């Protein structure tokens, strides 16, 4: 009946009676579910929608940068008088789009998809657990995240619009600009959701590993999720504290971040003063630098699974990968002020933080090198998930290596606040992390639905996105090195030194809209495959980790028999074995 027993491999795996299968109603089964797989899919789907929405905001901004002052086509007329009169974007609205693009992509798109979605769905299956340790808490995490998302979306509608001080929300601007209060309330929801989620993830990984699944037999994806959860657990509370303080500044009129003698529009501010604007930046980046690793570590985990599976080889240096990712986690707490070289915090501070920043690049390079070396001598299967994983490697390399000049205080003087920075971190997160996430969707779609996604549409989606996304971000390095500042409402046209760089705004604009169109094959594929996709059995990729021993899709409680683990996670092409994969769950 199932793979495990037909191979006669589970020595003492007695089949459990599945008598407790009382049918839940629609609401309990699909909406307020406590099953980690349903919650994972809810997270993933909501995250994908927010990615699409956040990207749409950027496509609107790109119109303004490519054609400053021209009416926005198609949707311009619908935006309203206080956003875009006659379809022409107002500077305030441009700022709202910028701040909300960043916030939505990071906190409502990538993290919920990478951690809430993949982490929730895949991690318990990979460790052989029946569910998360605290299923009700898991449901609460999702719904608090959902409330945070609704708050953020709703913030566009009140008078004055959404937050417009950038996703970093630096005071004093953020304290006096409209829209920020709802942003702060939304963030407090999102932070609470992350905290509950991370407690659940760590407890699950520590406590619910199946029999035989020792630490060094954990799939690398689980390690990545574990370190990510620790980052969320310990780095987010200081931002929650900072959010509360900024909320006090806005609502109760305190001056935590407001210096004395502040004059705004020619009028002195009637506040008690004595606050410290730099304090916000320290508290913010104490979260937001580990947050960078929250964005990248799950991506490392996903592509490790895909690469091991499609090279049909063990990962090169599994233990090195594990130690590197743990070291990355530690180091990520002491690099935050490299975002603040230009604030006048002093050369001693800068020297310290540029040193730690150079040190943290070492484990990142080790991870990348191990994954690259894993390809050596393999007969690679070039299916859609593998293409996304392979593309991740050079894209993340570009993103990571362009970060080094930013991490050194002297070169940062020239590069900071230019399009170079935008190019750098988008290479890490967009063609890096988001490509890994797409790879993960193609890879685990069969497990979640029992159907395989269409390969032809997958190739179109991959190659089109790969070309367009590089046309979007590569020119940003040219613009940035040329000195073009970020956050320019007119795309930088007001400065003479940008004259030669403005043509790239057109290239980036068209590439971004092309990238938008090329997500249509993915959307068609996603929904089409649910209906017309090729039905698959438990282990369509011939993979070795535990999730592939459960039915596709797994039922409530996940496994038909208690899983037992006999070996490491990536035993592919073991010499002398009958097949080129030796699953963890077979003796």
């Amino acid at each position: 009946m199932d793979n495990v027993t037909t191979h006669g491999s589970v020595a003492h795996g007695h089949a459990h009676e599945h008598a407790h299968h009382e049918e839940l109603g629609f609401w309990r089964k699909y909406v307020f579910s406590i099953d980690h797989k349903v919650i994972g899919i809810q997270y993933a789907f909501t995250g994908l929608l927010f990615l699409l929405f956040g990207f749409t905001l950027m496509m609107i901004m790109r119109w303004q940068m490519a054609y400053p002052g021209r009416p926005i086509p198609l949707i311009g007329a619908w935006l309203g008088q206080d956003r875009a009169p006659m379809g022409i974007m107002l500077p305030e609205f441009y700022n709202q789009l910028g701040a909300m693009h960043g916030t939505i992509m990071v906190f409502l798109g990538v993290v919920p998809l990478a951690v809430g979605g993949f982490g929730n769905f895949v991690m318990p299956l990979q460790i052989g657990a029946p569910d998360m340790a605290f299923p009700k808490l898991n449901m609460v995490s999702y719904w608090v995240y959902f409330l945070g998302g609704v708050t953020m979306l709703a913030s566009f509608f009140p008078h004055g619009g959404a937050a417009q001080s950038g996703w970093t929300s630096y005071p004093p601007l953020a304290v006096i600009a409209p829209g920020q209060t709802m942003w702060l309330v939304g963030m407090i929801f999102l932070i609470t959701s992350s905290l509950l989620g991370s407690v659940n993830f760590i407890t699950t990984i520590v406590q619910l590993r199946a029999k035989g699944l020792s630490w060094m037999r954990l799939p690398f994806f689980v390690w990545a999720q574990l370190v990510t959860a620790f980052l969320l657990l310990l780095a987010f509370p200081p931002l929650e504290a900072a959010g509360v303080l900024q909320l006090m500044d806005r609502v109760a009129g305190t001056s935590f971040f407001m210096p004395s003698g502040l004059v705004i529009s020619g009028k002195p501010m009637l506040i008690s003063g004595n606050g410290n604007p730099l304090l916000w930046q320290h508290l913010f980046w104490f979260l937001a630098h580990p947050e960078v690793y929250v964005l990248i570590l799950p991506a490392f985990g996903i592509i490790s699974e895909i690469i091991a599976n499609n090279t049909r080889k063990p990962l090169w240096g599994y233990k090195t990968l594990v130690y590197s990712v743990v070291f990355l986690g530690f180091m990520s707490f002491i690099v935050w002020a490299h975002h603040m070289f230009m604030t006048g915090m002093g050369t001693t501070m800068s020297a310290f933080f540029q040193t730690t920043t150079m040190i943290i690049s070492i484990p990142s390079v080790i991870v990348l090198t191990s994954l690259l070396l894993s390809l050596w001598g393999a007969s690679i299967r070039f299916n859609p998930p593998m293409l996304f994983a392979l593309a991740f490697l050079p894209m993340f390399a570009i993103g990571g290596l362009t970060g080094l000049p930013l991490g050194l205080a002297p070169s940062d003087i020239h590069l900071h606040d230019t399009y170079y920075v935008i190019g750098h971190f988008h290479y890490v997160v967009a063609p890096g992390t988001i490509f890994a996430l797409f790879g993960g969707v193609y890879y685990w779609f069969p497990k979640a639905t029992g159907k395989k996604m269409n390969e032809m549409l997958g190739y179109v989606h991959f190659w089109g996105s790969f070309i367009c996304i590089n046309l979007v971000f590569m020119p940003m390095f040219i613009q940035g090195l040329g000195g073009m500042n970020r956050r320019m409402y007119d795309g930088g046209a007001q400065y003479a030194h940008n004259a030669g760089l403005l043509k790239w705004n057109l290239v980036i604009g068209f590439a971004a809209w092309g990238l938008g169109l090329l997500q249509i094959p993915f959307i068609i594929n996603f929904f089409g495959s649910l209906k017309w996709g090729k039905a698959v059995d438990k282990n369509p990729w011939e993979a070795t980790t535990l999730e592939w021993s459960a039915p596709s899709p797994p039922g409530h409680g996940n496994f038909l028999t208690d899983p037992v683990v006999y070996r490491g996670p990536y035993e592919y092409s073991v010499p002398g074995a009958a097949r080129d994969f030796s699953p963890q769950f077979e003796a």
Partner: protein
Amino acid sequence: MEIPYIVETRADTGLNNVKLGIWLFLASEVMLFGALFSTYIILRVGAPEWPRGELSVIFGAANTIILISSSVTMVMAWASLKMHAWGKHRFYLLVTVGLALFFLVNKFFEYAEHVGKHEIPSYNTFFAIYYTLTGLHGLHIVGGIVVMLYFLGPGAKLAKKNPDQFTNRIEATGLYWHFVDLVWIFLFPVLYLL
């Protein structure tokens, strides 16, 4: 499959799920209050002058004693459960709730006095951080009261069905309560005495 280690401890980690979960949660709380205490230090060090003796030490000391007593009764509530003295457990838990409410009433009078003198958060940086720290701490007290009332009310049903799991829950509640107490033990000298 059922979720394991809800009650029994896992051999290789020596923990049950609830205990690990509550400690992780407390770790995040340490970071939350740690950030706020750091804020206090940075603002105070950077201020040209810092007001002292603004708060009533009597009120603060009384509240310190009240909270420490409530920690003791919380331990008694848990220990009584371990000794299967159900009536005592409920008595001590109820006393803990009572002391927590007493703390809040005191805090209310303290706040009212300062607000009456127009010493509100926007008055100066000291009162800004005072209201923020004690307000957030007060919310944690309220959270604790809600949880304890739940275990006195509908949550108590679990004690009949699965007494060990119920005892674990009370233990976790106690750990949280001691943490809230501990935060106050830092708050009292920092805000009232120094």
